[in-house]
């Protein structure tokens, strides 16, 4: 398969631009320029940028040249970098901003330069670069899966001839799977794309999207609910809206249809491990019964209630230990389904993982923090359904001294000090939104915390 740069260069409109706050890059310059690709030919490279546009530039310059690239998400903790570098056999770092790098990485640093048309054609760019991406929702050490450009773009059809050229934007970070899908749709289609950065307020982002004439936008259901609450949304006139990464419920689909009656509204199932599974565009939540068991490039099965996917768009495996697929090549997504009235609907995660606005939370990691509090005997953390973020984290706590529950003052002081502990140890989406004191928490016959009995 042609490299990403070659695919951009092959599009007739490679004069499109990537637009970030304060920086605009021409796709043609990126595709034809020399960049850091030649100096890193055949190497394994960590892409550790402070901006999304920097990451996009690095991907274009490295694909087809580097042996392997590791795309670091913005929230990757510096403490995990030595492990990532060792596990992925990293030989160099690429960044636009060397001052932002943690010290003592022990690797040569290659700085991204302003792109200019150059002699890329003279250097070979046909290496099948491995793209390593981080899976979401792991505890402890980060986990990486190995993708290829072919797998990552497997769900992307060429834009229909004669259709006006799209201008893409995403509420995701392009260093995550959902955001990368939007970037790759833009790049392989020769389309402009609006990229954001973490410091850009949501309202400013919407205004900029409107000014740039964005036509295609992707995000989680939570992102879209925020759009529905934003006055700036009325300035948008999108032709295509895409929801993924979270359950898209009927309410959000209906409200989006009301607000953007002209737009094609698609909700997609995708995961970093299994790739893009399927898309639904009939305006209804869930997906048709017939999707399961049908032939095609992506095969779906439901086994013991969970969705299994076999697909050329899936990652080829984990970097390091771990088995991604079963003997027949199916990835177990861990997403639980229910069939009702000819429609499959998602009901949550088998593992109990909580999806808060697209960010995954393991109940156990929150319980571990709660249980460190000297007054806490035991805790149970579960998802609570939320019409805003899909779920929020809800905690029940059994105190060492249940009598404390009889004193409102003591209870309120304990609540504050437990939440303080959580806020110091956990990011905001993992900190319990609801905290309730209970007399006791039930155990299973096997001596485990009862999680299923609601």
């Amino acid at each position: 398969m042609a490299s990403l740069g070659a695919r951009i260069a092959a599009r007739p409109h490679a004069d499109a631009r990537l637009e970030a706050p304060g920086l605009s890059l021409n796709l043609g310059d990126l595709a034809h320029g020399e960049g850091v690709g030649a100096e890193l030919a055949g190497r394994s490279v960590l892409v550790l940028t402070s901006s999304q546009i920097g990451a996009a530039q690095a991907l274009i310059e490295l694909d087809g040249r580097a042996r392997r690239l590791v795309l670091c998400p913005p929230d990757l903790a510096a403490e995990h970098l030595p492990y990532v570098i060792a596990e992925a056999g990293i030989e160099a770092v690429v960044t636009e901003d060397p001052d932002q790098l943690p010290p003592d990485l022990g690797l040569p640093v290659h700085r991204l330069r302003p792109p200019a048309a150059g002699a890329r054609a003279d250097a070979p760019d046909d290496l099948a670069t491995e793209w390593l991406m981080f899976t979401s929702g792991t505890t402890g050490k980060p986990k990486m899966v190995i993708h290829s450009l072919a797998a990552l773009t497997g769900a992307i059809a060429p834009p229909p001839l004669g259709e006006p050229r799209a201008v893409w934007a995403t509420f995701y970070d392009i260093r995550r799977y959902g955001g990368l899908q939007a970037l790759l749709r833009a790049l392989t289609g020769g389309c402009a794309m609006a990229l954001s950065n973490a410091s850009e307020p949501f309202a400013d982002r919407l205004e900029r999207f409107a000014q740039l004439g964005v036509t295609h936008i992707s995000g989680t259901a939570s992102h879209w609910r925020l759009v529905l609450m934003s006055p700036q949304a009325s300035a948008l006139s999108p032709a295509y809206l895409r929801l993924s990464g979270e359950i898209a419920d009927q309410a959000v689909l209906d409200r989006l249809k009301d607000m953007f009656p002209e737009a094609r509204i698609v909700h997609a199932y995708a995961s970093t491990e299994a790739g893009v599974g399927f898309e639904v565009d009939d305006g209804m939540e869930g997906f048709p019964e017939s999707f399961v068991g049908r032939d095609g490039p992506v095969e779906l099965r439901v086994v013991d209630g969970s969705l299994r996917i076999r697909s050329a768009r899936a990652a080829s495996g984990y970097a390091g230990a771990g088995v991604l697929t079963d003997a027949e090549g199916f990835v177990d997504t861990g997403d639980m389904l229910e069939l009702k009235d000819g429609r499959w609907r998602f009901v949550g995660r088998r593992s109990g993982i909580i999806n808060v606005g697209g960010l995954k939370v393991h109940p156990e990691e929150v319980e571990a923090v709660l249980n460190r509090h000297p007054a806490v005997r035991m805790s149970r953390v579960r998802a609570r359904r939320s019409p805003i973020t899909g779920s929020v984290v809800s905690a029940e706590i059994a105190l060492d001294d249940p009598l404390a529950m009889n004193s409102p003052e003591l209870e309120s002081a304990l609540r504050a000090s437990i939440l303080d502990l959580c806020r110091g140890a956990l990011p905001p989406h993992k900190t319990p939104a609801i905290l309730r004191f209970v007399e006791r928490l039930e155990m299973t016959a096997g001596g485990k915390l009862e999680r299923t009995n609601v």
Partner: protein
Amino acid sequence: MNETVIDTRAPATDRVRRAVTVAFEATAASQTRTLAPLADDLVLVDSGLDSLCFAIIVAQLEDELGLDPFSDLDDAFFPVCFAEFVQLYEAAAQRQAD
């Protein structure tokens, strides 16, 4: 301190507004966010709160008032300003009382 006391004798709409105000202020404090003054025309996405904050507010109001108007499919709309947010809960409280 009187600002945060919910007077159960007050008319239902007053009680709802107080509860909403308290939930906004408490959530902003707990999430260490700077909350803009809660004027009726305050645009919610400019309030200093993010979607996680709104999720927490909605969950706490459900526990406190027994109201979850966002999940009511027939009536759900997404409020843009603070007054609309309050009205959404006032209307739900009215339906509950009826």
